[in-house]
């Protein structure tokens, strides 16, 4: 026990003191800050007013109506112009950025499907849709006037919007959009942790083998302790980094909430607001507990396999890639299953994917935000957790057998077939 603890300590300390860890840990909050303030700042700066000349042949688009719309949305200004210039419009001389030509049409027949917004530059979909909204509002108004629908009647019409919303009877407060968002985020985080820290375990074992220190260490401790110490040490590094990030997010969240409380930055407010809804509408203790469980369970499950692969490699990185490919594939398949599970959290793929330990760490996390026991019955959660524990005990045992042989085996290229033979040999 003491020796395993020593190994854990060494693995943990050498990694946490590394520059890459410190940079990676600090970089995340900095990127997070940049995201909040950067997007807000860029949105503010890049907002430009588009001046659009409207050449109306129908007579419905009066400057009064256009001005009303211009007041409602200042991103573009539409002006009625009367010009009969030839084919090409002189944008520079006129001072307009674009030209919208409205042909002659009647209010009670179908309007032309496509109006063309001519310009000497390309404008994106956002400009297109903004202009489209304005034109359609005016067109609605024209129809309303001609049909004799006044403001009062219009209100009655507007009241007539019926919305359909899926509600889980067992868990009313869950909102499908939010749940899938949280589920996805948790699933992806576990996915990254398994891949990044799993390969750290693999590289760490490989380093010990190629440095030829493995034989010295195994003359003091059992290979199993050596492997376990490495996996737990690296798992703790992942956990530390993760907790630091959460702490940073909380700090930044509080700071930015105060800063933006006055209501200046729109984008920042929005992000802060959405984080607030997450915190208030999800069963936070349960989700955090499950996240920690599946994060550690999934990491142990896969890290021991990665450790076994690391022990079988001789200095050749390509060998590492080809041996770890099938394992990496399993993790990627889990992500694919997760995207299905997020959209259909009670379907068979979601249920089985979240029970089988190969994919359960990622898939189950996609389902849990939908609610326990509403969407995920307690027996499924219990079975999934039980199987994951059994699963990682099995992979650790299995990996330890491979590790014992592999760590001292030099010079020979190893295949999965050979590794399986090591694992099932009698001692």
């Amino acid at each position, binding site marked *: 026990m003491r*020796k395993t603890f020593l190994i854990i300590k060494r693995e943990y300390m050498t990694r946490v003191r590394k520059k890459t860890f410190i940079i990676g840990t600090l970089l995340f909050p900095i990127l997070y800050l940049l995201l909040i303030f950067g997007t807000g700042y860029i949105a503010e700066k890049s907002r430009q007013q588009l001046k659009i000349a409207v050449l109306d042949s129908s007579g419905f688009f009066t400057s009064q109506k256009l001005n009303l719309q211009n007041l409602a949305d200042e991103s573009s200004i539409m002006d009625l112009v009367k010009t009969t210039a030839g084919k090409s419009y002189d944008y520079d001389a006129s001072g307009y950025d674009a030209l919208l030509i409205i042909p002659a049409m009647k209010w009670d027949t179908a309007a032309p499907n496509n109006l063309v917004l001519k310009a000497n530059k390309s404008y994106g979909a956002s400009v297109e849709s903004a202009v489209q909204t304005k034109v359609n509002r005016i067109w609605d108004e024209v129809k309303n006037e001609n049909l004799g629908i006044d403001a009062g009647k219009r209100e009655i019409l507007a009241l007539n919007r019926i919305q359909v919303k899926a509600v889980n009877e067992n868990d009313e407060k869950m909102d499908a959009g939010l749940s899938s968002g949280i589920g996805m985020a948790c699933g992806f985080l576990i996915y990254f942790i398994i891949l990044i820290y799993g390969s750290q375990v693999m590289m760490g074992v490989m380093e010990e083998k190629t440095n030829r220190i493995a*034989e010295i260490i195994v003359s*003091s401790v059992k290979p199993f302790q050596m492997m376990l110490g490495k996996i737990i040490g690296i798992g703790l590094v992942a956990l530390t980094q993760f907790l630091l990030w959460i702490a940073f997010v909380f700090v930044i969240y509080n700071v930015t909430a105060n800063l933006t409380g006055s209501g200046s930055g729109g984008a920042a407010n929005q992000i802060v607001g959405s984080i607030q809804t997450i915190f208030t509408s999800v069963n936070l203790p349960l989700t955090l507990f499950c996240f920690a469980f599946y994060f550690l369970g999934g990491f142990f499950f896969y890290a021991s396999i990665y450790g076994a692969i690391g022990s079988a490699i001789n200095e050749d990185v390509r060998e590492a890639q080809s041996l770890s490919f099938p394992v990496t594939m399993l993790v990627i398949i889990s992500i694919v299953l997760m995207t299905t599970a997020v959209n259909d959290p009670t379907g068979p793929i979601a249920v089985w994917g979240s029970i089988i330990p190969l994919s359960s760490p990622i898939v189950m996390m996609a389902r849990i935000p939908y609610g326990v026991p509403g969407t995920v019955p307690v027996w499924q959660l219990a079975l999934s957790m039980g199987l994951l524990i059994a699963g990682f005990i099995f992979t650790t045992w299995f990996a330890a057998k491979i590790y014992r042989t592999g760590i001292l085996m030099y010079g020979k290229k190893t295949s999965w077939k050979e590794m399986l033979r090591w694992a099932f040999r009698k001692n």
Partner: protein
Amino acid sequence: MPLLELQQLKKYFASQKAVDDISLTVEKGQIFGLLGPNGAGKTTLIRMITGIFYPDEGQIIFDGKKFDPVKDVGYIGYMPEERGLYKKMKIGEQAMYLAQLKGLSRSDAQARIKEWFVKFEMESWWNKKVEDLSKGMSQKLQFVTTILHRPKLVILDEPFSGLDPVNSNLIKDEIFKLAQNGSTIIFSTHRMEQVEEICNHIVLVNKGKKILDGTVTQVKQEFKENLFRIGSSEVIPALNGNAPFEILNSGKANAIVRIQEGKTPNDVLQYLISQNVAIHSFQEILPTLNDIFIRLVESSPAARQFQSI
């Protein structure tokens, strides 16, 4: 009571019998040479003694009791042939780590490392990284970490490879001191002149089997060919029929002779005196361990064949 006793030890791998029924005894305080050509099974044997491998059959008795890999590894210091250290780790921390893994407390480890570092003039290295050390320097560090926990049994596999003569002597002196202070040393190497210089007892292993066991003197006596070097003032005259020896090689003032079966050196001297040869020196030529090694290993097929089991 011997410190280590191996009884009919066997370890078979899928493709070969790495250790095939080896028994040997290592006495306390002995410097024991474990010799053998490449692939003879030495490393496998050592790995069983250090608890890395479990024997398929046979027993290891360590210090009077059945060997317990978990507990007894604390009394063993092993320096493997293929050895390395964590490249990015500081030397002081590295030594501390390895010493603590062997069961030393923090304070004990620190005190002993300091002591050894002073002895080997390594004090200034504490905060250096292993990757900054030369091969000889890291070899010294390796030796220190092997014996820090004052093991009862020290196993050194090619301890002098990569060391210059000065550092070789330094380590050699420490090995002698360890033996004097009661440690037992198993020394594995291909360099036979080192074995002759250092070891009391040797065992030669080939193809997983023990083919020679004894003290250095015994072994030499066993393999002697009754050769003598005779220094004389003139060339030995042609031998007559009663000469109890034959001349193998004759120079101007010395000759190498082989005594016939059943005759003694005194017979040779008597004959020479009767022939009026003025003798300056008379000396037995014992075979070197190198000769014995080559003779024994070459008499069996050179390369190890893969045997089916």
